[in-house]
């Protein structure tokens, strides 16, 4: 064998050694990823596909299933309950978005200062986040009770009429906003706190030397540098708001299936649940789910497009 042939053989052997090593590593990697991939496919992708198929059928829990085209989507647009749910979802989202981000930012700024008992207050604001939704909703049902609730007791002490939080349609959604905001502020506060701690101190020191007031520093340093965090908080909170389910169900569902007085706490996901499981209309419920999906996608798309104008990435 010539020297050249020997060199070629040696090089080929090295390549095959590298290939087999790569192959093994690839196998190892996919083996470790496989549980997750299978989980996503079995518990997410396949149900998603089935749900899309069901949305074009008259499927119920039992009985024959027939393809009905876009009937379920048309039905949603003419269903009074769907429009009530959609209106409630948007009203809820707008109020909750404002009430759970602005105060969260204020609290985060306060708790970013060197205050006495800072860790204690951080913990205090975060406790509602880790509390069970069903548990706190039941607790709030007692707190908001018209006759013996602690909140109405306080309102009466102040000389005002008690508020029928859970018994009148005009107050039903306000109760859900109150509880969800109370539960969400702590989480948003922690995210803002993390964002605030990433703002370089030198910028404030330089601004102080230039004579900038605290308010000017907040407007020109804190807010712009916090904008990626604010964007994240706004997007995630809004998506959570559009998908609200647990609080209205735990707080307001009745034996007849209404959610709050006159369906005042009915949002889109509880309606989806009611149609799927209380009225067993799986096809119609799937169509509602896909309409909600499109709405969330559209709103998120707009948020991302608009974000180019106000979010500053360093």
């Amino acid at each position, binding site marked *: 064998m010539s020297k050249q042939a020997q060199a070629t053989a040696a090089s080929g052997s090295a390549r095959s050694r590298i290939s087999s090593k790569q192959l093994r590593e690839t*196998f*190892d990697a996919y*083996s*470790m990823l*496989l*549980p997750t991939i*299978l989980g996503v496919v079995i518990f997410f992708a396949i149900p998603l596909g089935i749900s899309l198929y069901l949305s074009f059928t008259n499927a119920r*829990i*039992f*009985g024959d299933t027939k393809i009905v085209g876009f009937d379920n989507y048309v039905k949603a647009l003419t269903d*009074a*309950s769907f429009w009530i749910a959609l209106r409630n979802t948007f009203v809820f989202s707008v109020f909750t978005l404002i009430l759970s981000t602005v105060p969260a930012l204020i609290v985060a700024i306060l708790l970013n200062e060197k205050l006495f008992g800072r860790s204690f207050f951080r913990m205090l604001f975060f406790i509602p986040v880790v509390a069970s939704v069903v548990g706190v909703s039941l607790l709030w*049902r007692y707190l908001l*009770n*018209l*006759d*013996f609730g602690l909140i109405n007791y306080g309102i009466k002490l102040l000389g005002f009429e008690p508020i029928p939080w*859970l*018994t*009148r*349609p*005009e107050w039903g959604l306000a109760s859900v906003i109150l509880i969800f905001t109370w539960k969400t502020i702590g989480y948003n506060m922690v995210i803002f706190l993390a964002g605030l701690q990433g703002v370089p101190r030198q910028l404030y020191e330089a601004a102080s030397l230039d004579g900038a007031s605290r308010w000017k520093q907040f407007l020109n340093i804190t807010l712009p540098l916090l904008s990626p965090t604010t964007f994240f908080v706004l997007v995630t909170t809004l998506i959570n708001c559009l998908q609200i389910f647990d609080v209205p169900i735990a707080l307001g*569902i*009745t*034996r*007849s*299936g*209404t959610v709050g*007085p*006159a*369906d*005042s706490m009915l949002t889109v996901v509880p309606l989806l649940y*009611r149609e799927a*499981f*209380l*009225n*067993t209309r799986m096809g119609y419920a799937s169509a509602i789910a896909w309409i909600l999906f499109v709405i969330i996608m559209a709103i998120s798309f707009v948020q991302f497009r608009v974000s180019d104008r106000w979010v500053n990435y360093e």
Partner: protein
Amino acid sequence: MYWKRSLTIFSLLTMVATMLAACGASTTPQGGAATTAPAAAEATTAPAATAGVTIRWRTRASDAAEQKVYEELNTLVNDQLKDKGITATYDPAPNDANYFPKIQTELAAGNAPDIFWIGGANLAEFVNTGQILDLKPLIDKDSSFKISDFYDNVIGAVTHDGKIYGLPRDISTMVVYYNADMFKAAGLQNPQELAAAGKWDMAALIDATTKLTDPAKQQYGLGFGNWWGPQLYFINAEGGSALTADRKGCALNTPEAIAGATIVSDFSKNKQIVTDGESENLFNAGNVAMYMNGRWMAPGIRTNATFNWDVAPMPKGKVDSTWLFWGPYLVNTKTANPDAAWEVLKVLTSAEATGKVAALGTNIPPRKDEAAVSAFLGATPPANNQAYLDGIPYAALEGPVWDGNWSDFTTTMGSLWDKMTAGQITPEEFGNQACEQTAGTFTK
């Protein structure tokens, strides 16, 4: 390298174990239908066929006191069927809006209990699933069982197309529970005294409700749960009905139905009634003078009330009116052993068992047997148990809607009812909108 391999093998094993765990059938009481010992799995009719069988049964309880009653009933079933080798397991479920959907979902998944209770009005929805066993063949071949022992109208309601789809757990009429101390303190005749004098009518109810409402003391004249039972009582009492005579359409827009709805609308306007989720607790706490409900409320009052109380018939409107609530135990077609399920069902609905339940205070026996009725009448308080029985002859039977969806109908009706009691729509608008919006629930 070694740790990578180990991790890979561990991942694969975890994945396989997870999939096996997810796909495997549960053998716990919460899992599938009846669990049967291998030796008995093949047999179906001989007495020995039931040996080693566990039958899971379910009903819901309004409160802890009622749940205890069913736990004791389970013990009775096990004592009686010990010799036949049948074991019963009581599998309770919460008394909320999810009770029926939970069973329907379990039926679809193939792991519903062998025997389960539902409300009489929901019977059609369950039978239409095709998952409910026709009991007629089992009844026909069992000479020890007499279906004539049960109330005829209830058996009529559970019979459809010649098939018998269940046996009633119990019955209950709706009555007025009243706080006797509150009436006494106000110097008013209580509902029982008014009934004895032949003066217990809708005008008397409105009068007592008005006089006993005192916002300063957080005291309401009248309370009832926010569901179709008490709501439709007012409509029935004024000569109306929720459904047309053939039960194939809505009748909430008739003048009679609107007159009934107007009574409640006026009560709400004047803040004289409480109907929210805590209204029952408010009665038990002594803040409500009268409460309309079925017999199932009695154990909770016995446990919690510290005042004197009793019951009276529902006040007479334009016609005598109350509800005859009932609910059947149904047998799952997928039960592994129908004969064993039948044996358990017979005990659950026997004179002894229903009498025992009645004696514990929960409900009225579904049977006409003297023994069962005597056991019920002796279950005091309330002293005036006869009030529950007096309503049976004229009560409206809670019936299945074979050509519609009762749950769907009542959800729509309930939402509009709330709007009416909140003053957002008038009783006329309630009736008209209810019939418009529920029209689709009658087309199968």
